[in-house]
């Protein structure tokens, strides 16, 4: 598997993403500057790492979402390539129109940096096949704007199509005991695109891959990615044989 980590001015978790992709997903990662117009040939996965691209000016992710490389990321997603946006990367994905909705200021107005439990909503995607459905994992969160919202119709569609990837919960997986850190609608911590090849999430699984830092619950995501069978060819997308796309759609 080949992965491209997109670097924007103000990104600061690109090395964390690179380490996780290299060590756990066993991918060959490269860092790609946002001013580029294409991803390295044969890229299977594009990662938008955490940080504060463009200093969060205007709105989080707004300016990064219009960077030259994003057209290439959109094209990559259209042909079924995997895109993973973590934290600021999630904010960039919604601003870029690759995922619906928007991430607003945390309801309590505070930047929240701590460990957080999540429930894994489905285990049949390229990002979560090494987790179990309903599994509770503990990963880090660090954000000031993670309060996910969308209009009622969009939320109904996301829920109806099973596009919620992770929800904030407590250690037992309960969601009704104040586990939601930021006011996010339906406790949404991460969502998939309609074809499940684009994932955006606020928490940082890439930081929980080594027991040295207190947990390895983030490994499952990168172990899942290690099993990805490759991006379907652009020309044959839609006509590919079953099983060639790592379970997309």
């Amino acid at each position, binding site marked *: 598997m080949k992965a491209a980590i997109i670097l924007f001015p103000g990104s600061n978790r690109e090395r964390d993403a690179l380490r996780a992709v290299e060590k756990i997903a066993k991918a060959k990662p490269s860092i790609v500057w946002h001013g580029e117009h294409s991803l390295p040939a044969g890229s299977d996965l594009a990662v938008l790492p955490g940080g504060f691209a463009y200093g969060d000016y*205007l*709105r989080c992710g*707004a*300016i990064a979402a*219009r960077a030259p490389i994003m057209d290439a990321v959109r094209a990559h997603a259209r042909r079924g390539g995997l895109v993973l946006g973590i934290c600021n990367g999630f904010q960039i994905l*919604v*601003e870029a129109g690759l995922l*619906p*909705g*928007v991430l*607003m*200021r*945390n*309801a*309590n*107005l505070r930047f929240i940096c701590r460990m957080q439990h999540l429930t894994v909503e489905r285990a049949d995607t390229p990002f979560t096949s090494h987790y179990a459905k309903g599994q509770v994992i503990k990963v880090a969160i660090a954000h000031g704007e993670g*309060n996910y*919202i*969308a*209009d009622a119709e969009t939320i109904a569609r996301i829920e109806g199509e099973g596009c919620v990837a992770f929800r904030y919960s407590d250690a037992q997986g309960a969601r009704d005991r104040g586990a939601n850190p930021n*006011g996010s609608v339906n406790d949404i911590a991460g969502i998939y695109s309609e074809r499940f090849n684009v994932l955006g999430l606020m928490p940082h699984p890439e930081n929980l891959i080594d027991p040295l830092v207190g947990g390895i619950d983030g490994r499952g995501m990168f172990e899942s990615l290690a099993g990805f069978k490759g991006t379907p060819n652009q020309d044959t997308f839609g006509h590919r044989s079953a099983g060639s796309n790592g379970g997309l759609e």
Partner: protein
Amino acid sequence: MKARVVVTLKDGILDPQGKAIEGALKSLGIAGIDSLRQGKIFEIELATNDPTAAEGVLRAACEKLLANQVVENFQVEIFSIFASGGLPEQANMSEENITGT
């Protein structure tokens, strides 16, 4: 030609910053404010003097970047500047109220 773009949160969108500002005003003893919502203003100098062209430019700017229409509305005001008696003055504030949906 000058213009001002005002971006505000749509009705019904929670505005925690506005709420905090509202609370701060109350704590300062400034009475009589029922509610407050905050937004952004962009002051823009345009190369064109044609209001129709200006409207097109500003609409594109708002739709493509300045406002996130998932949660924000925008309003555009275009100021036609006429020189009179050697001094520029704001003779006509032609209202271009383009509200995003």
